[in-house]
Each structure stands twice: as C-alpha cells, then as structure tokens.
C-alpha cells in the first residue's frame, strides 16, 4: 500500500503535468491494488495498521453523507443565490450580522464537515468572512440534534445541555466579532476566488458540486488520516495523569477533542465516559470539538487557504476553551 500511497502523494505535490494527472494512472493503481487484494490485512498480522485502517475508513465513510449534503447546499448557493440577495438578507454591520449568522446556524442541523464548504461558498458569494465563520462554528455545534444527543448522554443533568448551548453559541459569536476586527481580506482570498462557471444554473450547480466534493473530500481524507494516526498513537489513558489539575485537565480535554476529530453528534457520549474529569473540563471537550479539530483544520485550509487555517485554528481553540470554562464555572 505504501508505494501506491506515495505515488498518490507525489502526484499531489508534483507540478500539474497532464502526463501525471492521467485517468490511466487511476486505473493502473486500482488494478495493482486489486491484484494484491487483502495482501496487507492477511499476511501481515499488523494489528496497529488494521486499527488505523478501520478508524481511517470509518471517519471517511461516516463523513461522506454529510460532506455530500454540504456540497449540495454549497453548490446551490453558488448556482442559485446571487450576491445581491445575500447582501439584502444579512445586516450590514458586523455587530448585527454575526449574531444573525449564529442564529441561522442553530436552525440548520449540520455536521462540521458539511458546514465548511457551505461557509466557503457563502464567502465566495460576498458574505463578510466574520459572518461566514460564525455560521461555520454555530451550525454543527448548537443544533437540536446535537443538544438532544447531549441530553441523552448526560441523563438528569439538563444544565450540561444548557452549558453546551451557551458555550458554543458564545464561541461562535466571539470568534466572529474578533474576526470582523482582526481578519484580513487576504486571508480568505482562496475562498473569494472561487468563481462560478458561466452557463445555465444546472451547469453552475454541477460544476460547483464536483469541484467542492473533489477538493473538500481530498482534504477530508488528509484530516481523517491524521485523526486515525493520533487515535492509534496516543492512548486515551495518557490523559488521566492530569485529570485532577483543573486548568491542565481542561487543556488536555480540549487537545483530545482536537485530535480525536469525532462527529458532534457522538462526542457527548465520549464526554460522558470521561468521568475522571470535572464537568467543566468535559464541557471544554464538547465546545472545542465541533469548532476545531484536525479534520476541520485540513478542510478549512483547503477551502479558505493555509493563511486562514493557521490563524483561525488557534484563535478558535483559545476562544472555545475560555468560553467553555466561563460558562462551566458559572453553571456547572
């Protein structure tokens, strides 16, 4: 497998030469792979590799329907919604547009993989980046599906649901307001430069969908591979050493949320089983997870560009941790 993957990697880093980007190469790779089918799983009793493969494919397969949904919505925005109509919908001033975007996010049950391409297309259609990133943070974190899952995972503790709702909403609004102050247009140039092909709305829709699924999907694979590697390499028990220290425990669970990259509908169950940690520390896990993790950073750097991702990820991590701790200490 390694040689094929390296070939694929090389193809991704090489200069775009038509000779390399050739459909025949895809077919060739597939034939080689089918010829050595099951070779690695069968002959090597390499349990770590098998676990890695299961986790990696699981994240990819699980994200697929949400990615496709997000891509269809983002393509519809690209094809059907004119920048003028969007401008009329959104308040002009960031102070109003950001909370409005957060509320729009709460109404749409989405997964974090879906909201990244949608936020990218919104930016391409002229929505202020501050409002787009607020939407991107709010949509996966504070919607009814996620809140119900949290209530099920923490029975008899409705304050946990309220705390998660407030913590995530606050995070999305604070990050949006900070971005409207500090953000630079140059950092989102990659998202702005996505043009829509001319022609009928149907053509614009399909070409945007193909482009987005291809690009966001590629970065999703990068993120899934990183998350699977971290999951296999870092045992969860390594965290327990810091469970008793309030500040370190919160940071450790924030970091765990970043490296596990699990879906926002499932993370409440993991948080419920981390009983060695205080409720506030577990709230950090729930607020950070849907906002920033390795899979999301990869997808954001693909959609918005590396300049964006390298600033947005640390900012979001810091704001999410702080918001969760403030809400946690006052509510839990």
């Amino acid at each position, binding site marked *: 497998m390694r040689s094929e993957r390296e070939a694929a990697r090389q193809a991704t880093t*090489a200069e775009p030469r038509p000779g390399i980007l050739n459909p025949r190469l*895809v077919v060739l790779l597939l034939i080689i792979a089918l010829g*050595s089918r099951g*070779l*690695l799983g069968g002959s090597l009793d390499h349990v770590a590799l098998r*676990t890695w493969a299961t986790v990696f494919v699981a994240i990819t397969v699980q994200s697929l329907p949400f990615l496709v949904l997000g891509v269809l919505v983002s393509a519809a925005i690209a094809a059907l919604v004119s920048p003028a109509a969007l401008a009329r919908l959104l308040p002009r001033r960031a102070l109003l547009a950001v909370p409005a975007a957060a509320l729009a996010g709460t109404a749409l049950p989405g997964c974090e993989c879906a909201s990244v391409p949608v936020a990218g297309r919104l930016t391409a259609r002229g929505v202020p980046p501050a409002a787009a990133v607020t939407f991107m943070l709010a949509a996966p974190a504070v919607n009814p599906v996620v809140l119900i899952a949290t209530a099920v995972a923490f029975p008899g503790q409705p304050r946990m649901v309220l705390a998660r709702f407030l913590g995530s909403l606050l995070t999305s609004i604070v990050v949006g307001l900070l971005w409207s102050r500090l953000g630079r247009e140059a950092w989102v140039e990659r998202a702005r430069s996505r043009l829509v092909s001319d*022609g009928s709305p149907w053509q614009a829709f399909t070409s945007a969908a193909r482009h987005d699924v291809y690009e966001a999907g590629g970065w999703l694979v990068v993120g899934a591979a990183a998350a699977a590697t971290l999951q296999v390499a870092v045992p969860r028990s390594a965290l327990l050493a810091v469970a008793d220290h309030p500040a370190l425990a919160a940071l450790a669970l924030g970091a765990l949320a970043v490296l596990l990259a699990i879906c926002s509908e499932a993370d409440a169950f993991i948080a419920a089983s981390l009983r060695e940690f205080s409720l506030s520390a577990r709230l950090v896990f729930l607020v950070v997870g849907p906002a920033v993790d390795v899979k999301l950073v990869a997808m954001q750097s693909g959609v918005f560009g590396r300049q964006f991702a390298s600033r947005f990820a640390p900012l979001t991590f810091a704001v999410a941790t702080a918001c969760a701790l403030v809400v946690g200490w006052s509510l839990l």
Partner: protein
Amino acid sequence: MTDEQTQSLLLIVLGATAAWLCWTDAALNYVRPSLVPYVLAGAVILLLLGLLPPLGLLRRRPSGQGNGDDHGHAGSRIGWLLLVPVLVVVLVQPAALGSYAASSRSVVPGGSDGTYLPLAPPVRGAVPMTMAEFVVRALHDRSRSLEGVPVRLIGFVAPGDGAEAYRLTRFVIFCCAADGEALQVIVRGDGTRWRRDQWLEVEGQWLAQPVAAAEDPNPPPPVLAVDVVRPIGQPRQPYESSVDYGR
C-alpha cells in the same frame, strides 16, 4: 480535458467503493446501522456527479474559463487523495475494531440510580442481553436484577489483567468506529485458551458484587461465571450501538 476525466473517474471509484461497502454489509464494520442508508445515498450522488460529464449532461467548458483554473489545479491534485480510502479498503480488508484497540478504549459506563426495566424473558434457558445492558446492570442496579439470572452474551476474546483468563469484549459505537468504546466482562470458569479476537457466545451468571460507588470513576469490570462457551463467527453487526447504554 484529462483533468476532468480523472476527476470523474475518482468520484466514480469512491462512490462505487462506498456503495459496495453498504451493499455487502461491510459498512457495519465502520458506522452504526442507521447511518448506512445515508452513506448509500451519498455514494449514489457521488456516482452521479462523476458520471455527469461522460454522459454529456454537463457540456464541456471552454478551457481557461470559470472555476478559477489557477487553483482548480490545486483542487485536482488534492482530489487524488480520494483514492486513498479506496486503496485502504481494498488492501486492508474491512475489519471491525478488535482486541488491540480494546486495550486503550476500555470504559466502564456510567449508570443512573433510577429504576431498570424488567429483564427480557429467557430464551433456551438464558436471558439474551447486550453487553451494555449486562455491564450497566451489574455495576449500577441497586435492585440487583442480575443476581441468580442465567444470561447469554456475545463478544470477542481480549486478554485480561494478571490471573484473569480473558475478557469478553464488545465495542459500542455512537456514530462510527472512531468513537467506539470497549465494554468488558471478566470471564471465570473457562480454561480454554482461545486466540485473541475469537468471537464467543457465552452463558453464565453474574458473580454478584456490591454496586459501584457513585464517586468511583473507574470500578473494575463485572465478572461472569460461565457454564457454556460456544465459538461463533463475527456477528453481522460487530458493534452494539445502543446510544443510552441500555438504560
């Protein structure tokens, strides 16, 4: 137009792989059953998106126009990675999480002190139950509903601590295998040296222990004294996916 053909081919290959996983139930090694129809729908849409240009529904764009071709190239290159999950599925045959992953993901589920539903009626002399129900009742049910009840559990063999023979283990997943947590039961009374990851159906009784203290975050797993042990193949659904741990 080579780029466009490559793009189509990659989308089709990925869509076909995902559809095949759903069709053969291999997807159950990765995601919870209720997610499978959505994965299949996503796969069909990927296939359609891939097939559009070859079928001529999307007319070719004049080259150098639209879609920001300068980073369209970057897009086409990163899209090559869509082939990686396909190659991983083909080369490392689909498999569920096993005893290796169990060692770092073992958990003891929390439970409420509330009331528990009555047990299901016994089938062929033992009450069939999920691992989640058994573990939660054993650790948290103050009315000790498991005491003296023959039960039937399904799980795989994972090594135990010290003198333990082995631990019967099953993963619970909530969305996908990435969030899987291992539930374990210590098995007593079976001297057979099973190989790791062998699936077993066991019948036996809970070795009664006091209910775990509410403040103890990490009580030891419950113990099952077994009478009957039958090796079986991997079940169609390798994971339990009860979101509420059977409460």
